[in-house]
Every structure is written in C-alpha cells, then in structure tokens.
C-alpha cells in the first residue's frame, strides 16, 4: 500500500468519492489502465492510495517503482454518482472493505476539513489490523469508526471479527427513520452483502450508493 501525491496540470479539483484513471504506456505502445479512488479531500493536495496487487500491470509500478518527479498519464476526476456533498445534512454511513475505504476516507476528510456537522460513521472491514489504512488518522476525523477484522485479530481484540452480516449492520447502522445516506465500496461480494443487508434492515435502495472494485491491479 502506498499513497502518492500527484501534481496534475490543469486539474480542476474534485469531489469526495471520485476516482481517476492512471494509464501507463510501454515503449512498444502497449497500454494498461486502472482506476484509483482519490484519497484526499477536495481542497487538499491530490492523492491516491494504491494497493499492491501481485501480477498486476499498474499497481506494482505505482507502489514499488515510481519516484518523485516521474510522469504518467492521468484521466479525471471521474464520477458524479459515488460522491458526497459536504453541505448535505443527512447522517452518513460509510461501509468500506479493504482498499474500498479510500474514497470513504476522502469523504471523512472533507467533512473534517469543512467542519461538517452531519453525523458520519464508518464501518471498516479489513483482513487484519496491519492492513488497516490511515490508522491513527481515522480516529482524529470526528467520525465514529467501527472495525471488523475478518481473518486475524490482535491479542485482546474486542471488536468484530467476522465478515459483514445483517446483525453487524443492525448494530452499527443508523436507524431507518434517520434516512441516512450510505456509501459502500469494496469488492463485488462485499458491496452486495452490505447493500443487500441494509435493504433487509429497511433501508431504501435509493439511499445506498455503491462502488465495486475489481481485482485487477
């Protein structure tokens, strides 16, 4: 995992939750393109957080090889659906699996940056504690963070230790009558489990915005 700060000529700013595409072109003209969520809040220096995927075509370069001053092609900002507006007063439930937390952190950072008062809660599913991104910072953003560690837990762990299920969502999610906005991001199975579970709790599907991550890096 690595966070890269990008300096993009002509970048007009972005909204919390958007992503960008990175395109790499080899000397023989072969191109590989991948999407990365923007981790920084609007108004902060543009940053992406990239998870290294073994055998990936783009992430090994971004995580292991790229150096200060290197240049590559970026397209964006992208997305008008999976975005949160900081003047939105409704409570916000963020549900992230693995690196799917990145665009959600941009939303939490944006809320902190503008002094937003909308209640915001993050349910963050990670394989283990070492894989939790932005540890430390998350506690400082004024957002309630609930972790579940699905594969391995540190000694003395008292939090959730299983995949997201309906009981967990019922414990963590805002009550239905609060009409929260929900953003779910992660692998396809994770996103569908969380979104379907929330609908079973009585959430209106239109409150739930989802973004599925692919497994190619």
């Amino acid at each position, binding site marked *: 995992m690595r966070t890269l700060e990008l300096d993009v000529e002509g970048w007009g700013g972005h909204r919390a939750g958007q*992503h960008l*595409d990175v395109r790499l072109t080899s000397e023989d003209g072969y191109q590989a393109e991948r*999407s990365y969520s923007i981790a920084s809040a609007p108004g902060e220096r543009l940053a992406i957080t990239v998870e290294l995927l073994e055998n990936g075509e783009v992430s090994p370069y971004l995580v292991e090889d790229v150096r200060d001053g290197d240049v590559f092609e970026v397209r*964006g900002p*992208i997305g*008008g659906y999976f975005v949160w507006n900081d003047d939105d007063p409704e409570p916000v439930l963020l549900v992230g699996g693995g690196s799917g937390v990145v665009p959600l952190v941009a939303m939490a950072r944006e809320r902190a940056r503008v002094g937003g008062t909308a209640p915001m809660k993050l349910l963050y599913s990670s394989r283990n504690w070492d894989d939790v991104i932005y540890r430390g910072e998350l506690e400082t953003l004024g957002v309630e963070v609930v972790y579940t560690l699905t594969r391995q837990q540190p000694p003395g762990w008292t939090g959730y230790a299983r995949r997201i299920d309906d009981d967990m969502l019922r414990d963590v999610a805002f009550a239905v009558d609060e009409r929260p906005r929900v953003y779910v991001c992660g692998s396809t199975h994770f996103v569908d489990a969380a979104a379907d579970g929330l609908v079973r709790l009585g959430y209106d599907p239109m409150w739930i915005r*989802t973004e599925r991550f692919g497994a190619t890096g």
Partner: protein
Amino acid sequence: MTDARTLDGNAIGGLLLELFGVELTAAPCTCGGCGAREEVARLDVYVDCPGVVVRCRHCNNVMITIVRGPERTRVDLSGTRGLEL
C-alpha cells in the same frame, strides 16, 4: 448472476468521459428489456470481455457494449431505451 468479475458503471466512468466528453455515471439509463431506469453507476459492468459489456441489474439484458478498435471505438446502445444527460 453477479459474481466477482461483475463491476458497476463507476468502472467505466473514465472511458465514457473520454468517449462522450461528459460525466455519465450519474446519468439515468433505461433498460430496453425491462424498462428499469437506473443511473449508469448502478448497472452491472463487465470489463474482462472483448470490450465492455453493460447489463441491466434487474433483468440482465445487455444494454450497452463498447469495443475499442485500432481505428475507432464502436458503441452499441441498442439494448437501452434512453440515456438522460
């Protein structure tokens, strides 16, 4: 029908932006099969085909295909009833 390769319209936001010059993930799109109307971001997308296939999340109808060739890109919208910009 959804499996680990099933992405959603967010995944092709950059491609659509490049092809059409506007942000389309929030644009409502009506299925030509069942008539369901959903934002592009809420459609099922497969990018590991030859090209891109966009399917209705309700009836699985193929709504859009996008095939990039060396000279031109072919966008087939025959499975949709309308795209609102």
